[in-house]
C-alpha cells in the first residue's frame, strides 16, 4: 500500500515537472439556454487561446451520457476533465475512477454531492453576491436622495430569485432613503417583465412615484423598458434600471440610454478553471474548493456597444 502510494507520488511528481495540460475533456450538460451555449463557446475560445486541445461532449441533458463521456475521457488519458453536472447526485463511481487515474476534475457552474476530495475545485457564481452588487450600485447612484424601488422577481421559489432578492436587500439595508415598495414575479421572461411593469406603473401614479427598477434578470428589464416607453416615460432617466446577467441585448439598451447598470453572470467559468489547473500542473498548487467568479458591474461608461459586439456571437 505504502509502496504503491509512494510510486504514485513519484510518478505524479514526474508528471508535475512535465508542466502544463495538453488535452482537456469537457462534458457539458447540453445547450438548453442561451447562457449555456455562451458558456460552451467561451470554454472553446479559452482553450484555443491557451493552446489546449479541448475534447467537447454534449450530454443532451442526460446523466448517463455524461458518465459515459467522463469514462471515455479517462480511457483516452486526457490531462484534466471539466464537468458541468446535470444533477447533483450519482457521481461517486466515475469521479473515483478519474481520481485513481490521477486525472484532476473541475466542476463548472453547478455542484455535486460527492466528497470534495474527488474533485480539484468547483468554479461558480455567487447569486447572493450578484444581488449585493446591484443593490450597492443603486445606493451609490442615488446618494442620500429618497428612492422608491420596484422589483421584478425571477420565477417564484427558484434559487436565483431567492438569492438575488436577498443580496439586493442586504446591500440596501443601511440606506434608509431606499425602500422597495413593490415586488412581483416576472418569471424571468421579457413578456412577464413587461406585464408586471405595466401594473407597477399604474399603481404608482403613472410611474411618477417610482425612482428605480431592480430586475432579477436582463430579459425582464428589457420587457419593463418597453412598458416604460409605452407609458410615455424615459427609462434610464425618469426610472433608473438595474438588472443581472449581462446578455447582449441589455448593452444595446444601455447604449441607447435606456438601462443604467447590469451585473454579469459570466459564461466564462472555464477561464478561472484553466488558471487553477495550470497552477496545479506547474507546481501542485491546490486551489480553493470553490472559486467564485467575478460579478462585474457594467454601466454606460463601460463601452456598451463594445460589450454588445463581444457577446453577440457567443450563442446567447
Amino acid at each position: 500500500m505504502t509502496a504503491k502510494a509512494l510510486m504514485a507520488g513519484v510518478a505524479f511528481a514526474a508528471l508535475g515537472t512535465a508542466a502544463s495540460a495538453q488535452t482537456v475533456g469537457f462534458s457539458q450538460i447540453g445547450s438548453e439556454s442561451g447562457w449555456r451555449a455562451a458558456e460552451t463557446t467561451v470554454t472553446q475560445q479559452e482553450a484555443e487561446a491557451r493552446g489546449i486541445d479541448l475534447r467537447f461532449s454534449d450530454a443532451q441533458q442526460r446523466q448517463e451520457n455524461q458518465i459515459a463521456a467522463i469514462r471515455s475521457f479517462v480511457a483516452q488519458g486526457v490531462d484534466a476533465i471539466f464537468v458541468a453536472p446535470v444533477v447533483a447526485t450519482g457521481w461517486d463511481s466515475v469521479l473515483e475512477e478519474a481520481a485513481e487515474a490521477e486525472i484532476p476534475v473541475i466542476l463548472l457552474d453547478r455542484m455535486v454531492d460527492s466528497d470534495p476530495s474527488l474533485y480539484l475545485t468547483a468554479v461558480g457564481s455567487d447569486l447572493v453576491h450578484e444581488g449585493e452588487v446591484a443593490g450597492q450600485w443603486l445606493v451609490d447612484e442615488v446618494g442620500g436622495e429618497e428612492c422608491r424601488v420596484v422589483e421584478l422577481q425571477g420565477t417564484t421559489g427558484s434559487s436565483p430569485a431567492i438569492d438575488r432578492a436577498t443580496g439586493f436587500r442586504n446591500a440596501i439595508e443601511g440606506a434608509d432613503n431606499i425602500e422597495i415598495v413593490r415586488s412581483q414575479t416576472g418569471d424571468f421572461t421579457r413578456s412577464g417583465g413587461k406585464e408586471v411593469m405595466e401594473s407597477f406603473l399604474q399603481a404608482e401614479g403613472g410611474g411618477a412615484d417610482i425612482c428605480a427598477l431592480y430586475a432579477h434578470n436582463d430579459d425582464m428589464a428589457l420587457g419593463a423598458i418597453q412598458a416604460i416607453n409605452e407609458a410615455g416615460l424615459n427609462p434610464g432617466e425618469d426610472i433608473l434600471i438595474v438588472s443581472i446577467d449581462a446578455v447582449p441585448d441589455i448593452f444595446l439598451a444601455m447604449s441607447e440610454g435606456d438601462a443604467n447598470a447590469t451585473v454579469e453572470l459570466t459564461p466564462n467559468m472555464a477561464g478561472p478553471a484553466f488558471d487553477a489547473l495550470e497552477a496545479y500542473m506547474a507546481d501542485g498548487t491546490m486551489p480553493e474548493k470553490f472559486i467564485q467568479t467575478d460579478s462585474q458591474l457594467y454601466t454606460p461608461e463601460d463601452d456598451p456597444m463594445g460589450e454588445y459586439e463581444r457577446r453577440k456571437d457567443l450563442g446567447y
Partner: protein
Amino acid sequence: MNTRALPLYATIAIFLVAYLICWIQFPAMLSTRVIGNLLTDNAYLGIVAVGMTVVIISGGIDLSVGSVIAFSGVFISVVLRDTSLHPLVVFPLLLAVTTLFGAAMGGLIHGLGMPPFIVTLAGMFLARGAAYMLTIDSVPIDHEFYDTLRRLYWLMPGKGRLTLLGIVMLLSVVVGMILAHRTRFGTSVFALGGGAHTARLMGVAVGRTTVLIYAFSGFMAGLAGIVFSIYTASGYPLATVGVELNAIAAVVIGGTLLTGGSGWVVGTLIGVLTMGLIQTYIVFDGSLSSWWTKIAIGALLLMFILLQKGLLALGRQQFAGTAQT
C-alpha cells in the same frame, strides 16, 4: 450459407470494421479500459435489450421499459431512504413488481386482442407517472451495500475494469440466448412471431406465451433498473427517457427482424456495443457534435431495414425458384 443468418453476420462484420476504423484513428480505443467502459456504460441498455429481443422476435414491442427503469431507480432509492430494508430485500420486491407489471400488459394484449404498441404505451405513461408520484427529485442512494456493489470489479490487465454491472449484462445475454434458442418457450416465441394463427396450429399456448414474454421483458427492465441505480447511485424520475427506443434500435441493428419470427440475442449484444462504440468514438474525437451519435444510429437502422427487405425478397425469389422446378 444460411441466408437467414446474414443479418447477424452483417452485424458482427460492421462492429469489427467500425472498431478497426476507431483503432486506426485512436489506438487507445483498443484498450481494456474502453472495452470495460463499453460493457459497464451500456449494461442497463444491454439487459433491457435482451428482454426487448424476445418481445420483438414474438412480433410485439414493449415501449414501457425506459419508464420502468426510471421507476425502478426511484422505487429503490425511496424505499432505501424511508425504510431500513436491505437492498437484497428490495431487489426481489422490485423485480416482482416489474415482472407482474409486464405480465399484466401481456395479459391485456392477449385478452383484449389489443396491439402491443398501445398497451405498452399506456404502460410507459403509467410507470413514468408512478415514478413521479414517488418523488420529483433526484434521490441519492447512500447505503453501504451499494458502495460494495459499486466497487466490485475485476481489474483487467491495462487497468480496464470488468465491473459487476458488465458481468450481469453478459450473464443476461447468455440466459437470453438459452431461453430463446434452446427452450420450448423460445420455440413458442419464434412460432408466435411467424403469426399467432400458425402458432396456434402448431400447438403453442398463445395466451400463456404472450404473458410470459412481457413478464420476461418486465423482469429484464426491473433488472436493468437495479443496474442503473447502482450505476448512478441515485433514483431520478426523469432518467432514461427514450431508452426503449435505443433498445429497439439495438435489437434491429443486432439483426432481429422487426416483424418478428427471426432474430438473435447475441446480435443484440453486438448492436448495443456498436451503439456504445459510436458514442465513444465521438467523445474521443471531441470536436464532433454528440448528435452525430443519433445520425449514425439512424443510418445503421435504415441500412438494416433495407438489408432485411432485400433478404426477404431474395428468399421469396429462391422459394419461387424451387417451387417451379
